[in-house]
C-alpha cells in the first residue's frame, strides 16, 4: 500500500510498540503532526524541545524501553543537543527524530536549516539523514535496533520535509542486518572460567557496579553473584539500586562523594570485579593510586570501555545479564566454600569502616539541613513505588547518599554530563511511563529554573510529579568549590533573586508548599506524597552546607576529606 513519509513514520512507531512520545512541532513537521490525528500513538507536547528530549530520556531510564522524541528543523533540532548528549553519556536507549528542510534546499542555508547530523555526530551512537522515502521504514527499524542493543544510546534520524510528503509502498523489515554492527552478547566461555581463578586467589574481592547492570536488567544476577560468593558491592551514581541499598553486602556509592567505606574498600581490595561501569574520573580520583594492589576484572558490553583508563587484567565482553548468568552457572561446578575463603573477614572489615565513618551531618538548631530532608524522605518512601530523579548539584549528591534505593531504575540522574535542568522533564517522562508511581524530582533552586516551563504539561496531564527544592539560595555545588578552593570568593553563585516557587507552582495550577521549620519537614513531605498531581515543595535549607565526604579533584580516593 502506498503511504506518505508521515504515514510511514507513524506506522513505524506503532510497529515498534511506541505508546507515547514527546515533541514540539514546526513548519517542516506539519505533515507528521497532521498524521497524528489518525493513530493511537500518543504525542505529548512539551513546552521546550529540551523538555521533550529529557522526558524521552526519563521514560527510557524508568522502563528500559526506547524513549522517543521529535523536533522540527533548525532551532528545534539544536534545542535537543543537551538532551542527546545527556543520553549519550549515560547510555540511554533513545530515538530522536528531527525534521529537515527539503532535500533540494539542504546546503543552501535555507530558512531553519542546520546540519543537525553534523552537530550531533560526536554525541550519538549513530545517525541518519533520510534522503529518500524508500529508505525511511528501514532506517527507523535500524534506529530502534541500534538504540536498544549493545551498549544503548541515542540515535538521530533527520527527515527532510519532501521525504515526509513523498509516497511509496510501506514495507517494514522483519530483521535488521547491518554489516558492521553485530554486538557480542555472550561471554567467551574460557574468559568466564578464568574469572573463577581470580576469585579463588582473592581474599578481599569487591564488586564495583555501574549503570550497565540496570541497562541489562541484571540486578537479580548481580545479587545472586554477590551472595553466592559473599562479595561486598559498591555502586557508582549510575549504578545505585543495582543491589538493594538495605542489603547487608551493599556498601553504597564510591568516588568523589562516595562513602568512606566504599573508597577504603576500593583502596584495600585485592580484586575488583567491575560490572557495567567505566572507571569514570569522578570514581577513580587519582588514577595511579586507584586500587593499586588489586587485580581488575571488567565485565562490559562495550569493548572500548575496557582498559580505557584503568588496565583490566581480565576482560569479559558481553551482555551483563548473559555473562553473569554464565558465571553463576560456571560457579556451580566449583567448591563455593573454597572460593569464599576469607571473605567474611573482609566483609567485617568493610562493616567496621561503615560503622566508624558513616555518612553523617549535624542537624543542630532550627536551620534545616538538606541531608535531614532526604533522610526523612528515604524512610517515608521505603517499600513504595516511588521514582526519584534529580537535577545537578549538591542536592543530587545528597540524594545519592541519603536515599536508600531498593530497586534499579528508581533513581534517575544525569551522571556523565551532569545536566542541570534534566531532572524535572525526566521526572515527567518517568511519570508518563509509570502512571501508578510517584515521581519526585529532587532539585536545587538554581537547577529547577532551567526547565520549569514543563510544569505546564505535568499539570495538564495530571502527572504525579513532585518537585522537592532544597533551597539554599546558592548554586550550591559551585559555591562549595569556591569555598574550598577559591577562598570563599562566591563569584556569581549567590542567586540573589528567586521567584516565589509556591506562587510559581500555583500559577501553573500545581500545588505549592513551603517551610523553613525543622519540625514541619516530615509533615510537608507527607503532604507532598499524599497530594495528587504535581506539587512543588520549597524547603529553605542551610545556606552553606557542604557535601561530605569529598575527594578533592586529582587526589587519591584514600585521601578523603571527611567533614569540613
Amino acid at each position, binding site marked *: 500500500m502506498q503511504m506518505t513519509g508521515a504515514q510511514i513514520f507513524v506506522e513505524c512507531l506503532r510497529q515498534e510498540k511506541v505508546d507515547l512520545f514527546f515533541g514540539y512541532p514546526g513548519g517542516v513537521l506539519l505533515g507528521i503532526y497532521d498524521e497524528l490525528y489518525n493513530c493511537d500513538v500518543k504525542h505529548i507536547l512539551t513546552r521546550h524541545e529540551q523538555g521533550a528530549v529529557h522526558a524521552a530520556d526519563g521514560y527510557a531510564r524508568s522502563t528500559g524501553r526506547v524513549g522517543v522524541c521529535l523536533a522540527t528543523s533548525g532551532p528545534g533540532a539544536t534545542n535537543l543537543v543537551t538532551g542527546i548528549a545527556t543520553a549519550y553519556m549515560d547510555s540511554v536507549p533513545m530515538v530522536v527524530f528531527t525534521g529537515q528542510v527539503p532535500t533540494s534546499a539542504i546546503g543552501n542555508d535555507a530558512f531553519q536549516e542546520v546540519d543537525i547530523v553534523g552537530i550531533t*555526530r*560526536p554525541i550519538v551512537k*549513530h*545517525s541518519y539523514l533520510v534522503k529518500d522515502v524508500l529508505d525511511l521504514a528501514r532506517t527507523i527499524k535500524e534506529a530502534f535496533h541500534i538504540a536498544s542493543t549493545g551498549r544503548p544510546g541515542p540515535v538521530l534520524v533527520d527527515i527532510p520535509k519532501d521525504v515526509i510528503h513523498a509516497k511509496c509502498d510501506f514495507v517494514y523489515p522483519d530483521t535488521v542486518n*547491518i*554489516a*558492521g554492527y553485530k554486538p557480542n552478547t555472550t561471554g567467551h566461555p574460557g574468559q568466564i572460567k578464568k574469572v573463577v581463578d581470580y576469585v579463588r586467589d582473592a581474599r578481599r574481592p569487591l564488586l564495583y557496579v555501574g549503570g550497565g547492570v540496570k541497562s541489562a536488567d541484571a540486578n537479580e544476577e548481580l545479587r545472586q553473584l554477590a551472595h553466592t560468593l559473599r562479595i561486598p558491592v559498591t555502586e557508582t551514581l549510575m549504578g545505585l539500586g543495582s543491589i538493594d541499598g538495605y542489603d547487608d553486602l551493599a556498601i553504597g556509592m564510591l568516588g568523589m562523594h562516595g562513602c568512606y567505606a566504599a573508597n577504603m574498600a576500593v583502596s584495600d581490595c585485592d580484586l575488583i570485579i567491575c560490572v557495567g561501569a567505566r572507571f569514570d574520573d569522578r570514581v577513580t580520583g587519582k588514577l595511579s593510586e586507584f586500587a593499586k594492589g588489586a587485580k581488575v576484572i571488567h565485565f562490559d558490553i*562495550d*569493548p*572500548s570501555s575496557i582498559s580505557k583508563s584503568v588496565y583490566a587484567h581480565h576482560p569479559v565482553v558481553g551482555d551483563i545479564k548473559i555473562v553473569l548468568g554464565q558465571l553463576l552457572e560456571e560457579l556451580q561446578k566449583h567448591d563455593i566454600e573454597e572460593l569464599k575463603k576469607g571473605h567474611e573477614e573482609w566483609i567485617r572489615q568493610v562493616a567496621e569502616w561503615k560503622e566508624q565513618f558513616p555518612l553523617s551531618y549535624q542537624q543542630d538548631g532550627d536551620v534545616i539541613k538538606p541531608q535531614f530532608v532526604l533522610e526523612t524522605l528515604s524512610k517515608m518512601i521505603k517499600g513504595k513505588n516511588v521514582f526519584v530523579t534529580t537535577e545537578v548539584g549538591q542536592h543530587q549528591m545528597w540524594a545519592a547518599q541519603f536515599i536508600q534505593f531498593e530497586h534499579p531504575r528508581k533513581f534517575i540522574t544525569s551522571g556523565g554530563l551532569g545536566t542541570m535542568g534534566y531532572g524535572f522533564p525526566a521526572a515527567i517522562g518517568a511519570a508518563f511511563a509509570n502512571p501508578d508511581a510517584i515521581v519526585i524530582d529532587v532539585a536545587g533552586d538554581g537547577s529547577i529554573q532551567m526547565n520549569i516551563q514543563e510544569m505546564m504539561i505535568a499539570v495538564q496531564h495530571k502527572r504525579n510529579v513532585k518537585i522537592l527544592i532544597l533551597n539554599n539560595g546558592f548554586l550550591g555545588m559551585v559555591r562549595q568549590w569556591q569555598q574550598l578552593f577559591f577562598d570563599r570568593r562566591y563569584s556569581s553563585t549567590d542567586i540573589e533573586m528567586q521567584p516565589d516557587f509556591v506562587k510559581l507552582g500555583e500559577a501553573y495550577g500545581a500545588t505549592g508548599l513551603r517551610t523553613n521549620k525543622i519540625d514541619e519537614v516530615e509533615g510537608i513531605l507527607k503532604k507532598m506524597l499524599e497530594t495528587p498531581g504535581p506539587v512543588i515543595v520549597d524547603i529553605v535549607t542551610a545556606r552553606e552546607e557542604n557535601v561530605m565526604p569529598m575527594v578533592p579533584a586529582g587526589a587519591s580516593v584514600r585521601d578523603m576529606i571527611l567533614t569540613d
Partner: protein
Amino acid sequence: MRHTISIIVENQFGVLSRVTGLFSGRGYNIESLTVAPQDDKNFSRITIVTTGDDAVVEQITKQLHKLINTLKVTDLTNEDHVERELMLVKISCNSTATRSEILQIMDIFRGKTVDVGMKSITIEVTGAEEKVNAFLDMVRPFGIKEMVRTGKVAMLRGQKPGI
C-alpha cells in the same frame, strides 16, 4: 609510536567524517589518510597513519570498531604487511645537465617522468614511505616547486583475509 591502521567501512555518506571526527574529537592526530572504494562498491578502505602509545592506539581501534558502519579495523603496524605511497614532485631544472642528473636519480628510484617543461620536470615515485622520502632528499637541492603525496596505503601480506 607510529601506527598504520586499515579500516573497512560501508560506503555511505558521512562515514569518513565519523572516522575523522573520532580522531579530532579525542585529540588524536592523523598523519595521513587515504580512502577509496573497494572492488565491491558497497565498501571502502581507509588507511590512516597515526601516532600514539599502545594504550592510545588500542583506544583508537576500539572506538573505530564501535562506529556502526565499520566492518573491520586492523592495526597493521606489527603485522606482516605491504605498504606504498605515491608522490608527484615538480623539480626545477633549467639546464640539460640538471635534467639528466635528475633522470639518473629517478632511474635508481624506479620513478617515472610524467611531465617535462622548459623550467621543470615532474616525476612520479611510488614505494614505501622511506623510499619516497629518500628520493625527495636527493632532489631537494635542485629546488622543489610543488609536490603532492597520497599518504600511505597498506594491506596484510599473503594468506590473511582482507576483510
